[in-house]
């Protein structure tokens, strides 16, 4: 029994000790209050305290307090004993002036130690302007059911379209908010009857919608309760004035029925649920175009960005991959930023880049990082330079274009020689490839000024000289042809040929005779002379030698009207030649005969026979 008791006490003490370790001392008050209206400031502590000291309420009027309330509870759960204790100090204060003030922390002493609460920041809104203001309580109108909806009018509940900026440049982010303002009406819920306009001309980036919370806000002379019904971030995609259509919302209001007082006993206030459609007005956004003079490497990014790069390795073997990683960080229209292009050297086989986006949509735009991995495989050995990668964007703060550059990388690729060993014989080979057609373009201009084809007209078609080129050879050939023809014909006529050639033949013989004369060969000489004369006569007279004799020669010659003297000479020559052959002669006679024969032939030659 004693043991159990002592254990229990120890447990309790432990629990108390544990409880004593965690002191929670929290101050809380509404974040916004209206000037002149009372509000409550509470301090909650989870232990018994001594010496609670409230701070000085310098900016606020102290009305009532502190009202102290205490509660404690114990519970067993799963064999575990939990107890909680709450001590609440409540002060009622009134705001004196407009502005934002901080109430200093309060302090307590627990078990000799001092603890302080948090400070509380309160915004004091100005009171409602005296003109407006219809609090429901003061409304003494005898109300029928119809009047209920009347109370709910535009001054009590409306919607506002709020944009962070009405004048932006292309691609800059705007925050669009649809806010509900209401005062003096009881809003039960939102319906799903919401129509958000199409934001034509903008790229929409939805934000995470948190739970709808109401806040007090002083607007246009009155204090309203406000709730953000819808928020989104818009990026203008083109220049000009872009109109955003109104949005439609619907809320359900709980309207108190001040209907006929049925009876004294019927004190239940009935409510009607009224659906009220609301319209958030349209708005026009003026979008400036981005200034001209976009840099070549303009990526489409608008905002603030930084760019960083790293490379997997600068020394690899051919056919080993290299990865170049570029990280673009910043805020703006990150989603639309174009992937910068890397100008890989020719020897690299380039693969598609892999883009990883890590974005968060915030109220000022898209923030985060875009990581791009470029993969390339070098196919040949050597030292190559990968030039710096450029990315240009438009800085909305500085209102000018900025160019970001990575650094240049020099990579060394070790050559690869394919070698196969078969039976100790090493073959070196190189993979041959067809020449790859990359693109087609016109061939380059001709650059040699010395080799120019000029139209040269050696011959003009249809000109006289052209036709001459035909006619001249034709004529020549015709002539040749004709001449030849005749020649052949003549050659075919033997007697004619003989006739023509008679002199030539005779002259030839005479030449021979002359030689014989000089050689003094009498016999031969006379023979030759005789033959010359007879053959000549035969040829010229066209009579065969066998039919010729001295008698008919003179007859024939006479018939051909040859002169007598000539006939005489002919006879003489013939006789002499015959005669002298067989008789010894005087020396001079040979010479005579020769001369006479020559003369005869010449004379006869002149005759037409």
């Amino acid at each position, binding site marked *: 029994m004693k043991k159990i008791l002592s254990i229990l006490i120890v447990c309790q003490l432990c629990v108390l000790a544990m409880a004593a370790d965690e002191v929670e001392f929290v101050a809380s008050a509404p974040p916004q209050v209206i000037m002149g209206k009372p509000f409550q400031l509470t301090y909650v502590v989870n232990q018994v305290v001594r010496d609670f000291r409230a701070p000085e309420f310098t900016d606020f009027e102290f009305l009532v307090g502190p009202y102290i309330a205490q509660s404690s509870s114990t519970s067993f759960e799963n064999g575990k004993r939990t107890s909680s204790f709450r001590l609440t100090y409540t002060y009622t204060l009134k705001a004196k002036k407009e502005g934002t003030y901080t109430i200093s922390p309060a302090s307590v002493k627990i078990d000799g130690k001092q603890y302080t609460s948090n400070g509380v920041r309160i915004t004091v809104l100005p009171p409602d302007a005296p003109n407006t203001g219809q609090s429901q309580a003061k409304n003494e109108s005898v109300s029928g059911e119809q009047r209920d909806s009347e109370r709910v009018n535009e001054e009590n509940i409306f919607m506002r379209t709020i944009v962070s900026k009405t004048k932006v440049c292309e691609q800059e982010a705007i925050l669009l908010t649809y806010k509900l303002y209401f005062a003096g009406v009881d809003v039960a819920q939102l319906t799903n009857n919401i129509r958000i306009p199409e934001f034509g001309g903008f790229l929409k980036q939805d934000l995470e919608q948190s739970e709808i919370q109401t806040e007090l806000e002083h607007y246009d002379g009155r204090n309203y309760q406000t709730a953000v019904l819808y928020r989104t971030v818009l990026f203008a995609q083109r220049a000009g004035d872009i109109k955003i259509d109104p949005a439609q919302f619907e809320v359900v209001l709980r309207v108190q029925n001040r209907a006929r007082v049925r009876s004294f006993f019927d004190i239940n206030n009935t409510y009607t649920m009224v659906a009220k459609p609301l319209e958030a007005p349209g708005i026009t956004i003026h979008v400036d175009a981005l200034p001209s003079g976009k840099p070549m490497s303009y990526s489409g990014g608008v905002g603030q960005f930084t760019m960083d790069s790293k490379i997997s390795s600068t020394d690899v073997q051919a056919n080993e991959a290299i990865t170049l990683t570029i990280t673009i960080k910043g805020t703006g229209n990150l989603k639309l930023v174009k992937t910068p292009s890397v100008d890989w050297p020719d020897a690299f086989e380039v693969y598609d880049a892999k883009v990883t986006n890590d974005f968060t949509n915030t109220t000022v735009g898209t923030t985060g990082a875009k990581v791009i991995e470029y993969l390339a495989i070098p196919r040949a050995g050597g030292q190559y330079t990968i030039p710096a990668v450029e990315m240009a964007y438009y800085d909305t703060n500085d209102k000018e274009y900025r160019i970001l550059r990575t650094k240049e990388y020099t990579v060394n690729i070790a050559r690869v020689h394919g070698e196969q060993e078969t039976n100790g014989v090493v073959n070196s080979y190189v993979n041959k490839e067809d020449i790859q057609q990359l693109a*087609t*373009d*016109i*061939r*380059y*201009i*001709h*650059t*040699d*000024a*010395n*080799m*120019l*084809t*000029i*139209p*040269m*007209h*050696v*011959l003009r*078609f*249809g000109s006289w000289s*052209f036709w001459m*080129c*035909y006619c001249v*050879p*034709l004529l020549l*050939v015709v002539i*040749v*042809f004709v001449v*030849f*023809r005749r020649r*052949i014909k003549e050659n075919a006529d033997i007697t004619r040929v003989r006739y023509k050639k008679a002199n030539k033949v005779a002259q030839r013989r005479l030449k021979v005779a002359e030689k014989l004369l000089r050689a003094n060969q009498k016999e031969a000489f006379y023979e030759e002379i005789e033959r010359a004369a007879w053959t000549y006569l035969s040829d010229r007279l066209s009579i065969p030698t066998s039919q010729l004799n001295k008698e008919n020669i003179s007859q024939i010659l006479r018939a051909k009207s040859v002169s007598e003297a000539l006939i005489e000479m002919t006879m003489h020559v013939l006789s002499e030649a015959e005669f002298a052959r067989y008789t010894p002669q005087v020396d001079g006679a040979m010479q005579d005969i020769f001369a006479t024969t020559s003369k005869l032939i010449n004379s006869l030659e002149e005759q037409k026979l």
Partner: protein
Amino acid sequence: MMNILLILLSTLFLDANAEYASGNYSQAAMLYEHLVAEQPSAEVYYNLGNAYYKQGELAQSILSYERALRLKPSYKDAQYNLELVESKIVDRIEEEQSFFLSEQWLFIRNALHMQVWMVMSIVLFVLMLVGFLLFAFSQTVWVRKTAFYTSIVAIVLSVVACVNAASLHYRDVQRTEAIITQGVVNVKSSPDRSGTDLFTIHEGSKVTITDEIGEWCCVRVGNNIGWMQQIHLERI
């Protein structure tokens, strides 16, 4: 005198090439035009064609290449470039099938220069004559046979060559081939603005002019014939 002109021209040529290399295509084109006005040559027309192409002037480019090929039918670079530029024009031209061999015939005709055809014709004619003589006067049988057949072949070829030369000459003199220079042309049924539109042709297409009346001319493209204004085309 001729030499000085040639020197001036070659400097101009090199200047024009430098302009082209720097990318000043319109400047280069102007200089090339000067050059051909002074002394037409195939290579300068070719360069001119390149300069026009780079400026996007497809019709002028095609004209220049055609003129280059007229001066030097065997100019491979000009043929290649012309083909490439023609692939970029809008119309797809179908050859008219009047005579099934006409395409090959024209191809052969255009392959050689007119001068070459003329010389060939004359030489073949002479060959024919020689063959004839040999045939007439030779005693050897095989010589006579060869000569006979050679002459026949030679005279036929000579006539063909002469016809080709005549055809080319006619083409150069009459200039019936033209390229459309206006972006879009509606070819009408009569030489009048109020004529019915028959068909449409685009910049860069080659047409054959068959008739002329005042500022209008009748053109044939493939199997289509119609009238259009002469200012919208330029003869090769």
